């Protein structure tokens, strides 16, 4: 098996692009047929991708008027500036067209909408994002339990996974193998807090195991945390091949899933419907601890000279710098660039230096801030030297959660990937010195003002940057 350089992002983005291109074409076709004329448009089943769907619809000079969801927890929340409503309530809206956009639950949604008296092809449409996604959703497989092509693909993937597994075994004989197919630094970090307990060790670097990751950033974090044996595989190898193998014969392998999803939907359903937290997904489902255990925090090997050099190069003042992390890997935060700019201006006015944690080419520095490309292993040290950390809930927040500085984390109502109920540090009982704020997406301007007000004006006579 060749350990190729990270291609995960490219593969994921390609699939995403293909889906949204297909969706654009589907909605455009409906628009050109006059389906939306004089009608109110509701979207359903796409909570996580709602913002991107809205962009597609608006690009066609249409407007999203309603967003609906079956989860009572989401109803009443603000998403895309709209109050999310129940699916049943769509029945009472005149001149409605509902777009059902969920390739997993499309059958249930279709049935539900028909049950409300809405007519498919007139009042509602089930869209898949193109023919290939329609096939994958099982749309054409109604006559069989499993389409022959699907079964063939599963078997081929499992066979490729078997070869990959044996290659790793040959390189690391006798060691347990953890498959971290989720390309998130946050997942890896929280997993790592509890792995030593599972392996009877005091720290990650003492754990004799192999960690398979599927993204370059995850590999870099794994190195920083102290994993001794790290294997970087492609998106396809992780998500198609190794997971298929694990599904087929995980009970006979030295291969373990490092996250709660990928082999079934058991824990995912509980995430949506019970009080379980992100931490529980590891302690209760991945590791099956009977009793609660305390997290063992890794010490990231921060480089004093590198961090000092960065501060000097960016003209940042230690103890008077706010490190902002405005990006998150799995959702588009609702704080606008104008709101961020206002926040930055407010901090600068009070005498602070402000820098943005820029993790990649699609993460430019916020206007008025310095571009701080911080190596993950230096992140805690950098935050401590800065004195202040302010971030949208993301994996980066997990990594700096132990930094000895003022830390503010912003969660977002209606964003599952930034839910305080699931990802809250207090809720997870991970650390207790983080100020956790919630952006309800209605009063964001007030939130920005409150954050600015909470920073005392510096008396060093700095005039800003």
């Amino acid at each position, binding site marked *: 098996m060749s350990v190729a350089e990270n291609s995960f992002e490219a593969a994921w983005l390609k699939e995403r692009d293909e889906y949204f291109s297909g969706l654009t074409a589907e909605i455009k076709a409906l628009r050109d047929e006059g389906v939306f004329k004089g009608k109110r448009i509701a979207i359903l089943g796409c909570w996580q991708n709602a913002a991107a769907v809205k962009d597609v619809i608006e690009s066609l000079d249409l407007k999203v008027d309603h967003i609906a969801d*079956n*989860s*009572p927890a989401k109803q009443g929340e603000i998403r895309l500036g709209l109050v999310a409503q129940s699916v049943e309530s769509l029945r009472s809206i005149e001149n409605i067209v509902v777009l059902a956009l969920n390739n*997993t*639950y499309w*059958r*249930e949604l*279709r*049935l539900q909408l028909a049950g409300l008296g809405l007519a498919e092809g007139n009042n509602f449409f089930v869209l898949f994002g193109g023919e290939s996604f329609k096939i994958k959703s*099982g749309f054409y497989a*109604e*006559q*069989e*339990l*499993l389409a022959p092509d699907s*079964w063939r693909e*599963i*078997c081929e993937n*499992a*066979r490729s996974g*078997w070869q990959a597994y*044996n290659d790793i075994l040959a390189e690391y004989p006798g060691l347990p193998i953890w498959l971290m197919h989720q390309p998130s630094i946050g997942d890896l970090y929280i997993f790592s807090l509890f792995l030593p307990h599972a392996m009877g060790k005091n720290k990650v670097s003492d754990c004799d195991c192999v960690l398979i990751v599927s993204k370059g950033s995850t590999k870099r974090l794994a190195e920083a945390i102290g994993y001794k044996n790290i294997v970087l595989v492609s998106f396809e190898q992780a998500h198609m091949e190794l997971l*298929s193998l*694990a*599904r*087929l*014969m*995980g*009970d*006979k392998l030295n291969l373990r*899933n490092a996250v709660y999803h990928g*082999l*079934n*939907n*058991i*824990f995912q*359903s*509980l995430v*949506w*419907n*019970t*009080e*379980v937290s992100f931490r*529980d997904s590891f302690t*209760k*489902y991945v590791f*099956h601890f*009977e009793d609660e255990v305390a997290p063992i925090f890794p010490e990231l090997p921060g480089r004093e000279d590198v961090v000092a050099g960065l501060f000097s190069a960016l003209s940042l003042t230690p103890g008077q710098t706010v490190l902002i992390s405005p990006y998150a890997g799995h959702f588009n935060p609702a704080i606008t660039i104008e709101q961020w700019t206002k926040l930055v201006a407010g901090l600068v006015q009070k005498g602070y230096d402000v820098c943005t944690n820029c993790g990649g080419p699609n993460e430019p520095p916020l206007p008025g801030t310095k571009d701080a490309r911080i190596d993950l292993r230096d992140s805690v040290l950098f935050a401590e030297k800065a004195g202040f950390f302010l971030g949208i809930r993301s994996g980066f927040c997990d990594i700096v959660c132990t930094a000895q500085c003022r830390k503010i984390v912003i969660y977002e109502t209606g964003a599952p990937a930034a839910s305080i109920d699931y990802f809250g540090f207090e809720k997870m009982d991970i650390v207790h010195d983080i100020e956790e704020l919630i952006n309800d997406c209605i009063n964001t301007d007030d939130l920005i003002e409150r954050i600015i007000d909470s920073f005392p004006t510096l008396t060093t006579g700095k005039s800003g940057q």
Partner: protein
Amino acid sequence: MENEFESCLEMAQAGKDHLESLYVKYKPKQSERMAVLLFPERREDFLNSAYKYLGDYLAKGGFDSALIVNSIGLDHEYMQGLTGKPLFIIDASEAEMEQLLRFASLAFMEVKTMALSNPFNQRAAGLVGFKDITMDRLVYYAIYGIIGDMEANT
């Protein structure tokens, strides 16, 4: 070691063939949808919850009927009385169930396994009693995967 992989694949193939032959035999019409469930779990409290929400699962999933393959000696008459939909209940041996589970582990979206510890990656037994996870909630949301508020719908 190669034999182990081929052996598992053969088992999964055998499970698939078995289940599909039943599916083709019992699926009433082209346009109708039939749920496929495996019942290998004998734990009584689990089964009570499974029986309780079988009707909800079929109704909310839009299924017209269900193919239920079991290795625990299900009471056919009792099961038929649980929902208003036709249920095709098939008894399987432990060996046959092993093959079916090996297939169901791969096809977990198409085949519902009504068990806490089967297939091997289900790993749900330890969740009962944790926080607000009752057996009912575990079965309703996690095992059946029913969408919507359990308390509102039952």
